[in-house]
């Protein structure tokens, strides 16, 4: 039984793009119908493989932004200027096109409502994607796990899932969402206006005594800043899970 499940996760399957959602000027979500999908946990990712006509191949990993939903898997891709893969996924792929992928992959950077909390989520830029799967799962399950989400973006236009986050913040008493905009803030902005630092985490994060499960995802610099600040504030390193996107997006 388990062997078949692994085979299912390792076998490259051809998914169909059934919808594209413009999240921000640089980020587009691709809703994929995967014929052989076996389900997934919030935080897991897919490996995507692109093959050119001359046989050239390249692979990238993308976090799944939605909790399990039958054969539907949604990834959100940020266009990296001069990237090799992201401009293709964001600008070229159309509804009806097909995409080769395998998954779900991951057992470390995952969270389900049954794992409990409290939960601290920190997302930088498109690092919010796997955290959104966790947050959406929490809401869908009607879980009462307390969540604090800190998200960082360059400007208000670049906040992914902006409306949905506002709705969750409004509707879910156990979920607190704090945003920091690092380059430009709109008039009347009441959130933070700088890169994450120890002081911000001290204000926003659960105290170490609450022993929250912490997940930090995004560019390496962001993740390092969050993780080291949390350790400084007394959180156990084993309770801090990180997913760095690395210096080269592409």
């Amino acid at each position, binding site marked *: 039984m*388990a*062997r078949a499940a*692994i085979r299912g*996760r*390792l076998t490259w399957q051809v998914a169909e793009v059934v919808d594209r959602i413009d999240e921000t000027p640089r980020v587009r979500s691709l809703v994929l119908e995967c014929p052989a999908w076996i389900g997934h946990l919030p935080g897991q*990712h897919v*490996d995507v493989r692109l093959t050119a006509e001359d046989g050239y191949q390249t692979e990238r*990993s993308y976090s799944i932004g939605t909790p399990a939903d039958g054969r539907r898997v949604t990834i959100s891709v940020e266009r990296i200027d001069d990237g090799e893969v992201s401009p293709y996924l964001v600008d070229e792929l159309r509804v009806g096109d097909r995409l080769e992928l*395998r*998954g779900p*992959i*991951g*057992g*470390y*950077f995952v969270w389900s409502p049954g794992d409990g909390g409290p939960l601290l989520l920190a997302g930088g830029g498109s690092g919010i994607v796997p955290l959104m799967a966790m947050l959406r799962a929490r809401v869908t399950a009607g879980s009462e796990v307390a969540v604090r989400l800190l998200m960082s973006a360059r400007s208000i236009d670049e906040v992914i899932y902006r409306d949905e986050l506002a709705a969750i913040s409004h509707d879910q008493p156990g979920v607190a969402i704090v945003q920091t905009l690092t380059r430009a803030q709109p008039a009347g902005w009441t959130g933070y206006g700088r890169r994450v630092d120890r002081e911000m985490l001290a204000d926003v994060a659960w105290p170490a005594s609450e022993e929250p499960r912490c997940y930090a995802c995004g560019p*390496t610099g962001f993740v*390092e800043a969050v993780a080291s600040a949390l350790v400084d504030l007394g959180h156990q390193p084993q309770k801090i*899970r*990180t*997913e*760095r*996107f*690395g*210096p080269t997006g592409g």
Partner: protein
Amino acid sequence: MTSDTHVDGNALGGLLMEVFGREMTDALGCCVSCGAVNEVGALFVYRSGPGDVVRCPGCTSVLLVATPGPDRPRVYFSSLRWLQPSS
């Protein structure tokens, strides 16, 4: 301070699943050099071109090296003392 350009062990999730036949990012691994025990997902992965160099977060010893190989991927064991999959 040195700038550091590593990602986390979960970046090798697909490759490790291929090699070991099960999810490995939540497995525990022990470093020969310093004895630190970490989840594979927490190890430092340097995507180096010829291969991915997996290092101990504590002492930066090379634990594993994954190469694409001419035909199929291969994982070399260096300073990894033991691996223990999750339940």
